[in-house]
């Protein structure tokens, strides 16, 4: 198992009633409601939580980013990744991830990620995402070319990481006279790439073809099973067997000393529920061209208020279908066992708290997870044979069929017993 801690880094210190009056807490909800004094306090609390997560035994810290919305204060995951690279020792720094289409210069991203990998001494996992719908508007990037830009930027970054420069890049969206970043990643052949997602079949198929683990973001168990069915089918067609080492899952999970406290705090997961978490604006979250044509009908109806968010549902339903898990260590472990038995992931991210949950309660949650829940999950993982990509020594991709390792260790290992490279 690879067990990660995650928070959206909510900016809970904003006047909630203003958001309700405005009707959305996204994109154009004015940043005059942002309080930098609270922001400064919260950023530092989140850093404290990450360090605690490492201390109590989590394997990874999962980071993400969003723009123009209080549900997530991280506007650039590479910044927190840089801080954690220097202030943690052991945890993997798992970016899920950098929104590639928003980058006008993917080579710059390749450099930043290489720096994080070196500073962290080879602890980077570099996930890539398309960015949410409203992110395209927040950054002025054309939603109609989102997937084209994602795929081209990915190709350019992997090439910049793995092929000695200089080379020239003449793509559809990116043109570079000279690609020759001085900084390259410590991990060879390159840092692991994991692909998170919620809904788009295209992304699942793309990840499976690349042999990148796919991280399902808080989907319902039945939906998650369908994701793995598709992934495994594409894996088989591509020439490898899918399975636990390619499966990740982000679980909202709040643990407290009592059931009552856990349930009260878990309600905060509904703090900004809409798209993922925000009080989403139906138009801004679904710009034309961003969604797959297969779900056009659902999203045009959502955009004019004819159906509820295809992603949203009530708190009680989410507790019932385990999209939210809450309780004491004793009661959450069987629920998580069920998730592990039914969907067989080897990578589990735990989104511990949201909204107004206090820093103290969040720390209690992290501590109880580390002390009581994670050891139990590791045993269940062993029993069920859920080996993470690190434990299984899985290859980084179809293109580079070997595991990632820091350059010096790899050289030493080669010296001792050469790796088989196909």
């Amino acid at each position: 198992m690879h067990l990660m801690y995650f928070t959206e880094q909510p900016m809970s210190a904003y006047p909630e009633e203003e958001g309700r009056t405005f009707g959305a807490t996204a994109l154009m909800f004015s940043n005059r409601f942002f309080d930098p004094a609270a922001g400064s306090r919260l950023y530092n609390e989140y850093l404290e939580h990450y360090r605690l997560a490492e201390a109590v035994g989590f394997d990874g810290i999962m980071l993400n980013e969003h723009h123009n919305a209080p549900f997530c204060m991280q506007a650039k995951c590479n910044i927190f990744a840089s801080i954690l690279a220097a202030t943690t020792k052991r945890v993997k720094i798992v970016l899920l991830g950098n929104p590639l289409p928003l980058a006008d210069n993917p080579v710059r991203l390749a450099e930043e990620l290489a720096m994080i990998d070196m500073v962290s001494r080879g602890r980077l996992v570099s996930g890539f995402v398309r960015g949410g719908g409203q992110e395209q508007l927040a950054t002025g990037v054309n939603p109609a070319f989102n997937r084209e830009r994602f795929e081209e930027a990915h190709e350019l970054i992997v090439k910049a990481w793995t092929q000695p420069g200089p080379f020239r890049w003449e793509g559809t969206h990116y043109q570079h006279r000279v690609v020759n970043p001085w900084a390259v990643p410590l991990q060879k052949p390159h840092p692991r790439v994991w692909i998170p997602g919620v809904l788009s079949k295209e992304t699942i198929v793309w990840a499976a073809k690349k042999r990148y683990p796919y991280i399902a973001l808080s989907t319902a168990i039945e939906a998650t099973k369908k994701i793995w069915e598709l992934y495994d089918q594409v894996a088989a067609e591509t020439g490898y067997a899918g399975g636990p080492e390619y499966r990740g899952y982000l679980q909202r999970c709040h643990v407290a000393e009592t059931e009552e406290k856990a349930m009260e705090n878990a309600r905060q997961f509904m703090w900004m529920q809409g798209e993922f978490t925000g009080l989403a604006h139906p138009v801004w979250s679904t710009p034309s061209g961003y969604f797959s044509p297969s779900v056009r009908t659902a999203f045009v109806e959502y955009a004019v208020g004819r159906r509820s968010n295809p992603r949203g549902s009530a708190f009680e339903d989410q507790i019932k279908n385990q999209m939210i898990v809450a309780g004491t260590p004793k009661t959450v472990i069987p629920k998580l066992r069920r998730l592990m038995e039914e969907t067989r992931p080897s990578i589990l991210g735990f989104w511990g708290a949201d909204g107004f949950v206090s820093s103290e309660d969040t720390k209690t949650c992290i501590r109880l997870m580390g002390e009581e829940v994670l050891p139990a999950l590791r045993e269940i993982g062993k029993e069920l044979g859920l080996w993470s990509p690190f434990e299984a020594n899985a290859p980084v991709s179809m293109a580079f069929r070997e595991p990632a390792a820091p350059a010096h260790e790899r050289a030493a290992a080669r010296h001792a017993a050469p790796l088989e490279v196909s």
Partner: protein
Amino acid sequence: MSTIAAGWISETIPIAGVAMPVARSGDGPPLLVLHHDIGTLDRLPFYDALARRFTVLVPSHPGYDGSQRPDWIRNVRDVAAVHQWLLGELAIARAPGTVSVVGLGFGGWIAAEMATLAPRAFRRIVLVGAMGLKPDRGEIADQALVSYIDYVRLGFADQRAFDRLYGADPTTGQLEHWDLNREMTFRIAWKPYMYNPALPHLLGGVAAPTLVVWGRDDRIVPLECGERFAKALPRARLEVVEGAGHFVEMEKPDALAQLVTDFVRQGEA
């Protein structure tokens, strides 16, 4: 266009590897009508009124109204060049200076680009609430920030006209249709949104007399853009239609048809 009204025929003409649907009706001098960013309804009283005096040609812009979406078309000038090529394929419009054009909104921008690409191609030009120029003071309303229904409604001064044409609560099919058209608009006009900074510098070469028409209550493209078109084009005048918004041809079809007919027929042999 899925269905064709009485008196209209539809043909598909291959241009640059794209199957371009063109609806045609009437007889008389050729008149090309270029539709809005929201596409067009199959039949409009405005088109029928023009068909009484002209051979009216209404092509779908590539990627609009269900037509083939070519991957390589990535800006409005590409669309303008495709339409110029189309004219060359139509016997009635082939000779330079024989065809006149009515550009509606976004179609007005395409018409202006076509005129700058081939300054002697058109006999006469009518631009109605045309996009293409950056306003000095206001902004062109950004459909990316509003729903399909709100955007189209914004273009009507009188909401009853919207209700008559689309129904007070448009069908999901209509919404999907608008979404497809919006996606194509994003593909070609996302940034800068709805204008070409080079256009004001190139309009000075357009030889054809031009009538610039604006709805007084156009909330999508500010009237100041009409003033700028009239100033930048050497042989242009501005006509403002009272009681109309951006979609003048849907709100005041008879008044606009009359303006177009009077203007285009001037100087005919």
